[in-house]
Every structure is written in structure tokens, then in C-alpha cells.
């Protein structure tokens, strides 16, 4: 399969080997249970029948690939198997990985969804999400990364609700050597963001990252508050926010889709940060979100260290997910 060969070449032969290694290691758990399960399934069956498809469905669903996406995939697979007259389960493996990769790319191939920043002048990044997904931590890691790239970064402590949130951001500010603009707990988040923008302009910062309080997407008032913050940013900096990053917890199930949908209604979500991907057998939700909502994943959190936020590289992710399958295929 030439596509797989290309993926493999890309990640084993050139300078991107480093990236691929991080993904391979960070996603060890994900891969083991995903690719491993598919391989195991294929090894156990001698012919392709209903039971085979049902078990395949199980593997996909337990990886939190959306139910609708799975049903669609299985139907397509059934058709493809019939069309190509595949009888041997080992042959079906090619079809499976082909279909999954196809589904992920959905047309645009091998594009790295880079973060959108202004070349000169201030760029504003707004970070949103439900409670406990890791917004503040992701901001800390992102600030570190941008600073490594030589950008002057500032943070705005827009989570004025949760106790300790401002202090948490300040700790990250100290760790990364980045200034944090804040007000006291309980103040109006839009005002904090406004201050942040003023300060960032005055200090000629390159990037301002705005933290916000976690909110469940069905709380209308809180979503309105977020829309207000967004409006303030739009008004103060032309073309801003340059990125609205929705932080999703990889262990979240089908509700992630509802989160992505609702947050997109009050802000213009431009990308997703998928956190805690290291600890879960999942990541399948990436497929569902990409497939059903067409929002690109821009970063993934693969660990607790400050460097553990990786730019999301679709090819690397797919490679990470299917590394075992791909390797085997090419060895054969």
C-alpha cells in the first residue's frame, strides 16, 4: 500500500523521526489497545462474517470513536469487502486501515494544521473548555512552546471563578518566565482580558493567551459570558482572536461532540487541544470530531511535563495509531 509506505518513510527516514518517536511513545497505550486489538481480532477469525464485524465495531466503539462514525464505517467496510470480494481476514486489515485513514483526512491529505499567528503585531489566543479538561495546564505548556520559538508571550488570567485558578496560572507564568495579567478572584473576566490586551499592546508582546473559567456547555449564562469575552477581543484587536482553542479531555466520551458543537456557537472555535491522551486507551474521539464537525486538532497533551504538549501532526497521529499495523504490512 503506497500511502502507508509513504507514511512510514516519512517517519523513519528523515529528520522528523524525533516527532514520530514522541508520538509513538506518548501513544503507546492508545496504540497497544487499538492496533493491537485489531490485529488480535484479525488473527482470531478465519472468515469474515457478522460476528467479525460486530467485534470490529466493539473495538472501534471502545476507543470512543463516535457511534455514528462507527456505524458509517462498518457499513462502508461491509460494502468494500463485498466489492473487492475479500475472504481472508488478513486482507481486510488493509481495507480497515485504508478506510480509517481516509475517514480521518476526509479529502485534505497530510496537512499539518499549524497555529495561526500574526507575523508582526499582537496575536490573541482564547482558550475555552468545560471544567477540569486541563485548560490552564495546556496554556502553561503552550506559553513555554511559543517562548522557545522566540515569541514574547503574555498570559491573561480570565478564570476568575474557580478558587486557586489565578494562582495556578501564576505558577505556570513563573515556570515559563512569562508575565501574567490578573485581577482578583470574582472580577469580570472580560475586564481582565481587556487589561491583558492593553498590557500586551503596551509591552509589544507577540502573543497573548487568555485563560477562561471552565464551563459546562449547557449553561447559557456562562456561554454568554464567553461570547462577551470574545467580543471584547474582537473589538480591541482587529482580526483577533487569531485562535480559539477548545480544550477537550481525551477520556471524555460522546459528550465531546456536544462540547465542540456548543462552544463553536458562542465563539469561533478554530482548533482543538486534546489533553490526557497519554493515559487513555482512546483518542478515537479525534476521528469523530474531525469527521462529524470538521474542526482540526492542533495540539495534543501527551504527558505531565512542560514539553509534553505536541503540535498535532495528523500524519504522525495516524502513524502513531497504526504503527504496528503499518510496520507489519510493510515487513510482509
Amino acid at each position, binding site marked *: 500500500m503506497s500511502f502507508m509506505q509513504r507514511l512510514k518513510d516519512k517517519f523513519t527516514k528523515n529528520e522528523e523521526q524525533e516527532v514520530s518517536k514522541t508520538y509513538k511513545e506518548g501513544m503507546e497505550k492508545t496504540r497497544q489497545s487499538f492496533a493491537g486489538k485489531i490485529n488480535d481480532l484479525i488473527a482470531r477469525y478465519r472468515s469474515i462474517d457478522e460476528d467479525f464485524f460486530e467485534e470490529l465495531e*466493539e473495538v472501534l*466503539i471502545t476507543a470512543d470513536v463516535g457511534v455514528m462514525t462507527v456505524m458509517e464505517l462498518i457499513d462502508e467496510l461491509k460494502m468494500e469487502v463485498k466489492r473487492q470480494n475479500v475472504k481472508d481476514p488478513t486482507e481486510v486489515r488493509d481495507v480497515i486501515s485504508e478506510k480509517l485513514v481516509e475517514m480521518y483526512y476526509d479529502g485534505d491529505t497530510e496537512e499539518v494544521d499549524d497555529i495561526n499567528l500574526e507575523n508582526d503585531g499582537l496575536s490573541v489566543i482564547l482558550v475555552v473548555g468545560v471544567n*477540569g479538561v486541563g485548560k490552564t495546564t495546556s496554556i502553561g505548556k503552550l506559553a513555554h512552546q511559543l517562548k522557545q520559538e522566540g515569541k514574547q508571550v503574555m498570559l491573561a488570567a480570565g478564570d476568575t471563578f474557580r*478558587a486557586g485558578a489565578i494562582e495556578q496560572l501564576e505558577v505556570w507564568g513563573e515556570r515559563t518566565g512569562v508575565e501574567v495579567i490578573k485581577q482578583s478572584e470574582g472580577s469580570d473576566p472580560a475586564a481582565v482580558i481587556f487589561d491583558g490586551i492593553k498590557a500586551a499592546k503596551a509591552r509589544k508582546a507577540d502573543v497573548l493567551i487568555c485563560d477562561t473559567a471552565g464551563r459546562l456547555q*449547557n449553561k447559557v449564562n456562562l456561554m454568554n459570558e464567553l461570547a462577551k469575552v470574545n467580543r471584547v477581543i474582537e473589538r480591541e484587536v482587529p482580526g483577533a482572536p487569531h485562535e480559539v482553542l477548545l480544550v477537550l479531555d481525551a*477520556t471524555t*466520551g460522546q459528550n465531546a461532540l456536544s462540547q465542540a458543537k456548543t462552544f463553536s456557537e458562542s465563539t469561533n472555535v478554530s482548533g482543538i487541544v486534546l489533553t490526557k491522551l497519554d493515559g487513555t486507551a*482512546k483518542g478515537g474521539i479525534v476521528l469523530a470530531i474531525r469527521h462529524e464537525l470538521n474542526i482540526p486538532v492542533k495540539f495534543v497533551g501527551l504527558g505531565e511535563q512542560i514539553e509534553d504538549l505536541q503540535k498535532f501532526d495528523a500524519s504522525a497521529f495516524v502513524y502513531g495509531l497504526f504503527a504496528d499495523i503499518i510496520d507489519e504490512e510493510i515487513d510482509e
Partner: protein
Amino acid sequence: MAFEGLADRLQSTIKKITGKGKVSEQDVKEMAREVRLALLEADVNFRVVKDLINRIKERAVGQEVMDSLTPGQQVIKVVKDELTNLMGKEQSKIAVSDRPPTVIMMVGLQGAGKTTTTVKLANHLRKNHNRNPMLVACDVYRPAAINQLETLGKQLNMPVFSMGTETNPVEIAEKAIEKAKEDHNDYVIIDTAGRLHIDNDLMDELDNIKKMASPDEIFLVVDSMTGQDAVNVAESFNEQLDISGVVLTKLDGDTRGGAALSIKAVTDKPIKFAGMGEKLDEFEPFHPDRMASRILGMGDVLTLIEKAQTDVNEKQAKELEEKMRTMSFTFDDFLDQMDQVKNMGPLDELMAMIPGANKMKGLKNAQIDEHQIGQIEAIIKSMTKHERQNPNVMNASRKKRIAKGSGTNVSQVNRLLKQFNEMKKMMKQMTNMQKGKKGKGFNLPFM
């Protein structure tokens, strides 16, 4: 979106079998598929779903359809009974040690809501059980976690024991228990750091805290939005620590919360409490029966029927039905309706009980705000009698007067008029749906 409830899913299947006296195997098979999809979409674990479906199939086939229920309701009842069975009974008791202090340990993944839950639980103990708890900050890893606990403790005026981030959590817990004895705190609640269930070092740390503190309760705090992995998380924590119960958080969100079912099924430990909001008193005993309805994404049909029967006076209901049919529904009736509905309980709860309500045009995304209801009342009451009976006479100057009288503005009056018209349209749809069926009273669209 994919988030329709079971009731909606079953609608088409049920149509086919309405009128049959017995539920056949084929019917059950078709419905079982829908039930299965609904459960999977609710994040119930795949294996749990499989077992459940098999049991439901066994029970449902060949059952006589009860007089009071349609075949569709019958199957739903079986499903709900099974789910309720699996969820178990309400159990919100908390252990009391013979030799105080009683020690409670809170464990879970990052971001599940342990710290908030710790404080909520302490508040619950003090308020409802008249206890005097002490909070212990053992999360030495996440930046400002100790600070968060201290701030929340201060808000409630509750003692928080902390030793900074440089001390080993086991030692912190040990010192805290000593301190609690001195200060006569009868409960000690230990907030631990979030950790992945696959992180062996950190899991060992929990084990060490457990050995030292020998807690009377270990609560696993789980985010109700957790997906298929909930099973693995619960299994690992339970194997390693033998947890005594579960607290489900963020249940005020719109997740179906299938994780609850999975956790109960694999650990057989009770879910004792639920976090229902960001405020510190939004913490309730967990109601397994309500959860069963929620996972199915169906309102509690039976409860709604009961409620409607007791609260809506039958004569009034008949009149209303007549009005709906003849389309002579006026603002006066609207006001009556609102009063009656208000008597039945909080509105969004009520809405949640109407199966299929989320699918109806106009009701979809309807945000129910009790404050708004007050405004609507004011607007209607500012109308003249004539206007209430004949909304069509409304013109700009009338609207202006009404807005002034009700302390609202013209656009709000307009919105209400528009909603009223939409409601009329909807009623027409509903009455049309009924036509063709043996006209028997007011039916909910899904039955």
C-alpha cells in the same frame, strides 16, 4: 446531532407494532438494536451493553402487553427496570468510625473534580449530619491545588490542613489525623492528587496513604462525561484500593452519563453522591432511578403521566384539548396553562420528562428560565381583555403600551407574540398527529 434519546429512536420501530397484543421476538430484536445504540451513545461500556441487551431480550419476548401501556412503553419499561436494577438502590450513607476521626479518602483522575467534591462533601457532612470535618491538602503536584482547597475551606470557615508541596503526602495525611484528634474534628477528608490509573508510582502512593490512614471510606471521583474508558479507570482504582463508593461529578451538564452504569456494573460499588453544579451546596445523594431515565435519554414517562393526572384538573384538560382542536387558544388559556404547569414543579425538570420534547420544532433548544416566565406573565397581564382573546389586533401602539405596562420592551412583546403563534402551530401539528389514531385523549407524540 447524534444525541436523540431512546424514546425518539424507538418511535419508528414502535409505530409498526402498535396495536399488537403481544411483543414478538422480531419486535424485540428491532427494538433491542435501538436500545443498544442509545446506550452506546450514552457512553455505557460496550460489554455492559451486551449483557444488558441479552437480559432485556429474554425478559421482553412473549410478554403480554399490559392494558395501560402500549407495546413501546412496555419495552421501555423492561429496559428501565433492568437499568434501575443494575443501578441499585439509593445509598448515600457515610461510614462512621467507632474511634473518631472517621477518615475519608478522595481519589480519581486529573480534572474529575476531587478538590471541589472534597469541600462539597465536608459541607454536606456539616450541614446535614452536624459533623465537624477537617480537610487535608495532599495534592502536592498540581500548581495551586492546595491554594484552591484553602480558599474553598475559608469560604465555608472550615479547617484545612496543609504542609506545602515539599512534604510526602503520606506524612501529610498522618500529621493531619493527629491534628484532627487534638482539635476534635470527627471527620478527616483527604484530597489527593489526580493521577492516571496506569501510573504505577502514583497508584502506589495512594496505597501507602491508605495503609497509613486506614480510611473508613475511599471515594472514587468520576467525571460523568467519561467515555468508554470509565470501566478501566474504575476497575484499576477498585482493584488497587478497594474503593467503598463513587461520586459522580458535573452531572449538571448535558451528558447522558452512561459511565455511571459502567462503573456500577464492573465494580459493584454504590454511586453515593452526585455533583450538580459549581456552588458548594450543589451536591446531592445519587438517585439511581433518575439516572436510568437519563441514560436512556427519555423522560420519566410514567412519572409525567402520574403528575399530569394529579395536577391538571381533568375538566380543564378536556377544555384545553377542545381549544387546541378548534384553534381557539388564547392568551388567557396560555396564562392558565402556565399556572397549572408551575404547580407541577420546576419547568426544566418537567420538560425533561416529556419524551421527544427535544425533537419538537420550537421546543428544541428552548431555554427555560423561570425569570422569563415571570416576564411573560407580566406581558400577558398588561394586555386588555380584548387583546388576550384576539392577539391579531396587536399593533405598534398597543405593543408599546404593553411593553411599558409590563416593564419590558417592544421586542420582548414581539418575541412573545411570535412564540405564541408558533405554539399554536405546534398544537395544530400535534392535533393532526392524533387524527387517524383512535382519538383517545391527549397523547404524547411518542406513544
